[in-house]
C-alpha cells in the first residue's frame, strides 16, 4: 500500500470538530448486531487504530483479506449453485436440467428428511415425508438415475447431507465410477458437518463422538482417494439462522472447522494433505457492511489460523473457500416480492465479499420449497449481477474503504475473542454437548424476534410499511403423493432384484469395521454397490453406535 496523503489527512478529532455540536447530540447511536458501534464518518486513522494496513495486502496473497485468488471474478465469476431437489430422482433430474438450461453452473442436491435421517422411503416414520423437502434416495439406483447424462466434470455437485453423509458420499463415488469419471480428478462437495446439526438443523442420527468419527472418515478417505473433492462444508449458516450474531456465526464455525482439523491430523494426515479441500457455508442477512466486513475479516483470520497455528506450507491450505448468498432468516412471509429485493442485496453482499459460490433463497421460502419460477428469479438475480453490474471487473472493489477496512479489523478481532471464550470453556465439542451454544443462541433468537415484533428492529412490510393484504395466492410448489408411492415401489423392486447374500455380507463388514474403529468408507462403498439401502446401512451403524439422545437445552 502506498503512503497516505498526509497533506490532506483528516483525523477523527477534526471530524468531530467539523460536525456542529447540535447535530452530534441528536444522532441516535447505531450499534450493529455484532455489538460494534458505527461512527458517522470513517477515515484512514480508523483503519490504523483497529488493525494493520499491511494486513490488507493483495488478493491471492497471504493473508488473503482481498480474496483467495489474484484475479477472482475477473478471471471467472462465482459459481451459481441453487439448492434443488424434491420427489423422486426423476423429478429432481428434470429440475436439474431446467436449472442448467437457465444458466446454473453448479448443482446442490436437497434430500428429503427420511434420507437425511437414515430412513428408507417405506419406513413408517417416513410417512408424509418421502420426497417432500428434497429428493428421496434409498439405494445407488436413485443416484444412477438423478445424475444420468450429467457431466460431473463440467458441473460440480454439492450434496447437502450430514447425518447419513457416509452413505450418500459412498453412493456418489460409486455412481461416478460407474459412469467412468476419474475419481482422482472428481470435484464436488459434501456438507458433512455434523457438529452444527446438534446446534441447529437437527438431522443427526448417532451420538456426538461416532458422528464426528464418520465426518473424519470421509475427510481421510477423500484426501487419499478423491483428492480434489471437498469432503466437508463447515456451516456458520445454520448457527446464525438459529440465533447467533455474525461474530458468533464465524467464531463457532471456525471452532468446528478446527475440531475437524484436529481430529483429521490425529489420523496421521498432514495439514496440507486436506486443509485446502475444507470449505464453508455462511449466512447473509442484515447490515450490508457488517456482512462484507465479516467475510473479509474472517477470511484473513482463517488464513492466519491455518498458517500460524497449524504451520501449513501450502498457501492453498489457508484459503477460506465458501458459499454464501442465502439468508432465510432475513426473508418474510409478508409482501413476498420484497424477498426478491432482499436476495438481490444479499447477492451483492456475497459478491463484494469474494465468495466462490453463490446461492440465493427464493422469494417463496417462507411458504415452501421453490417453484420453478422462483428458482429462475434467483438465477436471474445472480446473472444480472454478473453481466450488467460490473461486479466482476475488478477484485475486492471495497478494498481500502475507510469504513470497510476498519469494520473488517473489528470483526476479525471480535471473532478471535469469541473463539477464545469458547476455548476457555473447554472447546466447541464440549460446549455443544453441554448445550452452552444452544442455550446462548436460542435466548438471542427470542430477544431478536421479540425486538422485530415490538418494532425495535425495522422490518419492511412487517413492522413498518405494512399493507393489510387480502388473502393472496402465492403459487406453491405442490407435494405429489404419487411420487412417494413410486419411490416405495422402486425400493421394493431393487430389494427383490439385488443379491441379498452380497448385501448381508457387506452390512456385516460395516458392523465389524465400525466395532474395530476402522475407516468405514471402503465398507460402505462396497455395501452401496450391492444396493444396500440408506436405512439398512444406517441401522447397522445404529446397532453399533446407538442413537443420539437429544438433551433439552433452550
Amino acid at each position, binding site marked *: 500500500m502506498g503512503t497516505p496523503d498526509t497533506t490532506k489527512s483528516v483525523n477523527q478529532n477534526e471530524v468531530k470538530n467539523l460536525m456542529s455540536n447540535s447535530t452530534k447530540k441528536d444522532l441516535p447511536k447505531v450499534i450493529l448486531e455484532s455489538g460494534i458501534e458505527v461512527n458517522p464518518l470513517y477515515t484512514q486513522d480508523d483503519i490504523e487504530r483497529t488493525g494493520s494496513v499491511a494486513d490488507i495486502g493483495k488478493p491471492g496473497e497471504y493473508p488473503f483479506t482481498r480474496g483467495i485468488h489474484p484475479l477472482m471474478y475477473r478471471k471467472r465469476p462465482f459459481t451459481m449453485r441453487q439448492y434443488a431437489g424434491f420427489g423422486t430422482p426423476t423429478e429432481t433430474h428434470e429440475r436439474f436440467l431446467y436449472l442448467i438450461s437457465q444458466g446454473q453452473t453448479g448443482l446442490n442436491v436437497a434430500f428429503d428428511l427420511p434420507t437425511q435421517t437414515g430412513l428408507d422411503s417405506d419406513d413408517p416414520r417416513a410417512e408424509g415425508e418421502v420426497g*417432500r423437502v428434497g429428493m428421496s434416495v434409498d439405494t445407488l439406483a436413485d443416484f444412477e438415475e438423478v445424475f444420468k447424462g450429467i457431466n460431473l466434470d463440467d458441473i460440480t455437485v454439492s450434496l447437502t447431507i450430514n447425518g447419513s453423509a457416509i452413505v450418500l458420499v459412498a453412493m456418489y463415488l460409486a455412481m461416478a465410477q460407474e459412469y467412468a469419471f476419474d475419481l482422482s480428478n472428481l470435484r464436488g462437495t459434501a456438507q458433512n458437518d455434523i457438529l452444527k446439526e446438534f446446534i441447529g438443523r437437527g438431522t443427526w442420527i448417532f451420538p456426538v463422538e461416532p458422528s464426528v468419527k464418520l465426518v473424519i472418515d470421509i475427510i481421510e478417505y477423500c484426501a487419499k482417494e478423491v483428492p480434489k473433492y471437498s469432503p466437508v462444508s463447515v456451516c456458520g449458516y445454520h448457527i446464525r439462522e438459529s*440465533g447467533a450474531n455474525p461474530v458468533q456465526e464465524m467464531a463457532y464455525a471456525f471452532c468446528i472447522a478446527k475440531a475437524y482439523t484436529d481430529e483429521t491430523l490425529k489420523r496421521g494426515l498432514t495439514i496440507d494433505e486436506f486443509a485446502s479441500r475444507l470449505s464453508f457455508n455462511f449466512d447473509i442477512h442484515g447490515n450490508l457492511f457488517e456482512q462484507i466486513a465479516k467475510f473479509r475479516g474472517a477470511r484473513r483470520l482463517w488464513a492466519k489460523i491455518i498458517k500460524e497455528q497449524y504451520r501449513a506450507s501450502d498457501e492453498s491450505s489457508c484459503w477460506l473457500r465458501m458459499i454464501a448468498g442465502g439468508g432465510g432468516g432475513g426473508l418474510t412471509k409478508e409482501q413476498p416480492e420484497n424477498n426478491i429485493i432482499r436476495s438481490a442485496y444479499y447477492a451483492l453482499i456475497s459478491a463484494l465479499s469474494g465468495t466462490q459460490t453463490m446461492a440465493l433463497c427464493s422469494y417463496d421460502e417462507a411458504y415452501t420449497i421453490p417453484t420453478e419460477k422462483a428458482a429462475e428469479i434467483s438465477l436471474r438475480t445472480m446473472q444480472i449481477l454478473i453481466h450488467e453490474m460490473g461486479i466482476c471487473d475488478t477484485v475486492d472493489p471495497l478494498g481500502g474503504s475507510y469504513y470497510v477496512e476498519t469494520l473488517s479489523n473489528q470483526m476479525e478481532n471480535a471473532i478471535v475473542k469469541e473463539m477464545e471464550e469458547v476455548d476457555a470453556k473447554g472447546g466447541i465439542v464440549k460446549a455443544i454437548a453441554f448445550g452452552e451454544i444452544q442455550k446462548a443462541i436460542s435466548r438471542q433468537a427470542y430477544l431478536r424476534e421479540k425486538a422485530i415484533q415490538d418494532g425495535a428492529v425495522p422490518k419492511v412490510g412487517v413492522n413498518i410499511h405494512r399493507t393489510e393484504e387480502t*388473502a393472496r395466492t402465492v403459487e406453491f410448489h405442490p407435494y405429489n403423493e404419487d411420487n412417494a408411492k413410486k419411490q416405495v415401489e422402486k425400493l421394493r423392486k431393487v430389494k427383490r432384484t439385488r443379491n441379498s447374500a452380497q448385501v448381508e455380507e457387506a452390512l456385516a463388514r460395516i458392523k465389524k469395521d465400525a466395532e474395530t474403529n476402522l475407516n468405514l468408507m471402503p465398507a460402505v462403498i462396497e455395501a452401496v454397490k450391492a444396493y444396500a439401502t440408506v436405512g439398512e446401512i444406517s441401522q447397522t451403524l445404529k446397532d453399533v453406535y446407538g442413537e443420539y439422545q437429544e438433551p433439552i437445552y433452550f
Partner: protein
Amino acid sequence: MILTVKIMKSKKLKILLGKPGLDGHDVGVKVLAHALIDNGFEVIYTGLRKTIEEIVQKAKDNKVDVIGLSILSGTHLVLCQQMNEAMKKAGLTIPWIVGGNIPDNDVEAIIAAGAAAAFPTGTTIEAVINYCDELAEKK
C-alpha cells in the same frame, strides 16, 4: 428497614411443546418456549424427532394443560390426523394447538382434525401468548 415479601406467583398453565416427525427446525419452538416462560407459563419441551404417540404420552405423564405441536416440514395435515387418533386412544381431552410452516389455507383442515387452534406462518409471539392467556383464564 424495608421488609420485602415475595409472593410466589403460580404458573398460569403447563404447556408441552413438541416436535413431531423428522423436522429438525427448532428455532421457532424454542423462541416460543422462552416467550411462554417469560409470560408466566410452565413449559416442557420434548426435543426433536418424537412420534405423535410419544408426545401424547409425555403430555399425559406430565399432566399438562395444553399441547403445542411445531411442524415446519409441511407434514402438518398427516401429523394432525395422527394426533386426533392418538388423543382419542389416550383418552386425553386437553386442547392441542399447531404452529410452524402452516399455510393460511390449511388452518381449517387442522381445526377439523381436532386442533383447538392453528397458527399459520407469520403468527406473532403476542398472538400465541394472548391465546394461552385466554386458555388460562377459562381454566
